[in-house]
């Protein structure tokens, strides 16, 4: 029983990381159908922001707290810039954005190498987050709990923004029917940019979280990006609840498979499960139903 609980907690914490990364993608992917491969480098930007802050603020706890909003701004600004420079021009060819943003991601990785050096770096975690909590024979690592809380907080915040603010209403309108939104007087171009800002900013927050569980390096984003896209595909494009359920489901599945087999077999198993799932629901867990041909 304890094994099951421990394993589920591991799975949920894997899911929380996936969720943090996928959250921004559901926005950017959902909004314009854009596959932004540079999303992984926005994660990296958030992580390096934490690293740089820690050099000037010696208290690990304080620097982490400052890093969260700052990383959001840094990565968000990068995302908005990318949208403005490139993505908006490719709006009619969403698939091509994948290759274009891949090129951007290569350049950003090299930039990180030139600025921070190729070897991975580490940040110190605040004391509070280094220990464990044990309850009923189950061990909860504090840093994992923190990431879980952060992920849920981001989901909550994003839900509130989308539901109750004028900005959120505009974003949802554009996702559901871009042309109609445009003729209703919504400046879709500006909404796109803001969406990209928020989506990429969330990647920055994910980057801060990742510094607690692993090293920081120029290619750290690449390791997560495909998994995060799979979460969005399975959850349904532009669907927050789909992303939440999928991220945790995939996390738990991964950790259960890892426990009973090996890491590599688990990866393959998760992919097989996803293909099987898409046989049942090809458009993902939740979809927007429309009458249009697509």
């Amino acid at each position, binding site marked *: 029983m304890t094994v099951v609980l421990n394993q589920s907690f591991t799975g949920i914490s894997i899911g929380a990381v996936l969720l943090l990364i996928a959250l921004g993608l559901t926005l950017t992917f959902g909004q314009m159908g854009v596959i932004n491969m540079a999303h992984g480098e926005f994660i990296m930007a958030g992580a390096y922001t934490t690293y740089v802050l820690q050099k000037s603020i010696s208290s690990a706890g304080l620097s982490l707290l400052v890093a969260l909003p700052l990383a959001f701004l840094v990565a968000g600004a990068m995302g908005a810039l990318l949208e403005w420079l490139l993505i908006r021009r490719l709006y009619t060819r969403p698939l*091509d954005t994948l290759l*274009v943003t891949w090129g951007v991601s290569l350049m950003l990785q090299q930039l990180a190498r030139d600025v921070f050096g190729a070897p991975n770096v580490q940040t110190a975690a605040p004391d509070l987050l280094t220990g464990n909590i044990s309850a009923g024979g189950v061990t909860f690592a504090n840093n994992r709990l923190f990431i879980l809380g952060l992920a849920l907080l981001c989901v909550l915040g994003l839900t509130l923004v989308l539901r109750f603010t004028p900005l959120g209403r505009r974003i949802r309108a554009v996702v559901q029917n871009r042309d109609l939104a445009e003729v209703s007087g919504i400046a879709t171009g500006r909404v796109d940019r803001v969406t990209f800002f928020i989506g990429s900013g969330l990647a920055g927050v994910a980057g801060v979280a990742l510094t607690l569980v692993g090293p920081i390096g120029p290619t750290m984003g690449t390791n997560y990006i*495909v998994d995060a896209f799979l979460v969005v595909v399975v959850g349904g494009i532009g669907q927050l609840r789909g992303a939440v359920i999928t991220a945790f489901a995939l996390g738990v599945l991964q950790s259960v498979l890892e426990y009973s087999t090996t890491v*590599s077999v688990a*990866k393959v198993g998760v992919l097989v499960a996803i293909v099987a799932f898409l046989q049942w629901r090809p458009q993902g867990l939740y979809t927007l139903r429309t009458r249009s041909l697509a």
Partner: protein
Amino acid sequence: MKTITERLRVPGAFLLGAVLLLGIAPVALSDFRLSLLAKYLCYAIVAVGVSLAWGRGGLMVLGQGVFFGLGGYAMAMHLKLADAADTGEKIPDFMQLYGTSDALPWWWKPFANPAFALAMTVLLPMAVAALVGFLVFRRRVKGAYFAILSQALAAALSIWLIGQQATTGGTNGLTDIQGFFGYSLDDPVNQRMVYFVIAAVLLLLMALARQLFVSRYGELLVAVRDSEERVRFLGYDPANVKLVAYVVAAGMAGLAGALFVPAVGIISPALIGIVPSIGFVIGAAVGGRASLVGAVLGAIAVAWAQSTLSDEFPAAWTYLQGLLFVLAVGFLPGGLASLGTVLRRRRTPATPKEEKVVVMAGEAA
């Protein structure tokens, strides 16, 4: 109808390519450069399939590394077994190092047979593509979804290979291959022979792809790319049309992987994961995805630039590479193959749609 020059254009270009690849290159290039060219031509073979599936069929095949890898491993497994047999060993060298038993895994055994291994280099990738394609296209998973799934497939295979070190060589892959069906690969003469095989296969597959492009199937494939729903209303099942292109492209990638092994002497997970899989597509994108010659030349050029520049200026090359993708894909969607058309249109009054392309190319410059 057609003038004689038009009729002779394609066979003429083909003949020119054959003379360049089979006649001039082997004479003009040193052994070292020729072996590099052999490697680039393997990437070009993959690009032929990419041009068919992506350029004509609109399928964003971001997992060609899977098929390249299956073909490569099938070939390398046979060559490793043959090497082991030559030295009187029962199992390949790396298995003695990492393995736990002296017995050959059951799924290695059939690859001792050269005919079986050769057939598998093409059939195995095609079978996997047929299975994946059947499941995915039947449920109308397309566009970005398909691109991401194929990427995940490449990631999964390379992670799986790394995990099975005792039977696949893990991160190192299958290396240190000595012979190729009885010929020693250390001998430069045999290396040249490998080059000739690769160049001939490339020319053959280009001819095959060209036939597919101009056939009724080729027209139908373009129709599916541009309006899948409309094709369905004409009574075709677009899933089958796409499946053919996907499976053929997979077979070509498999063959390329198989030929890559004797040319370079290694196959490893690093050659087939997400990054190299995108690389297979990038070459075609830069050269011109819908143009067969464009895709092939693009693949060769990118591979050449990669190995020439990355050694001397690693940082500068990475920036250049990124910029190249951004400019070529973002602002010249037809690739370099369309550069002539775009420039010609710039001089003559353009229609609004064409104008847009020209303006964007202008901004990029």
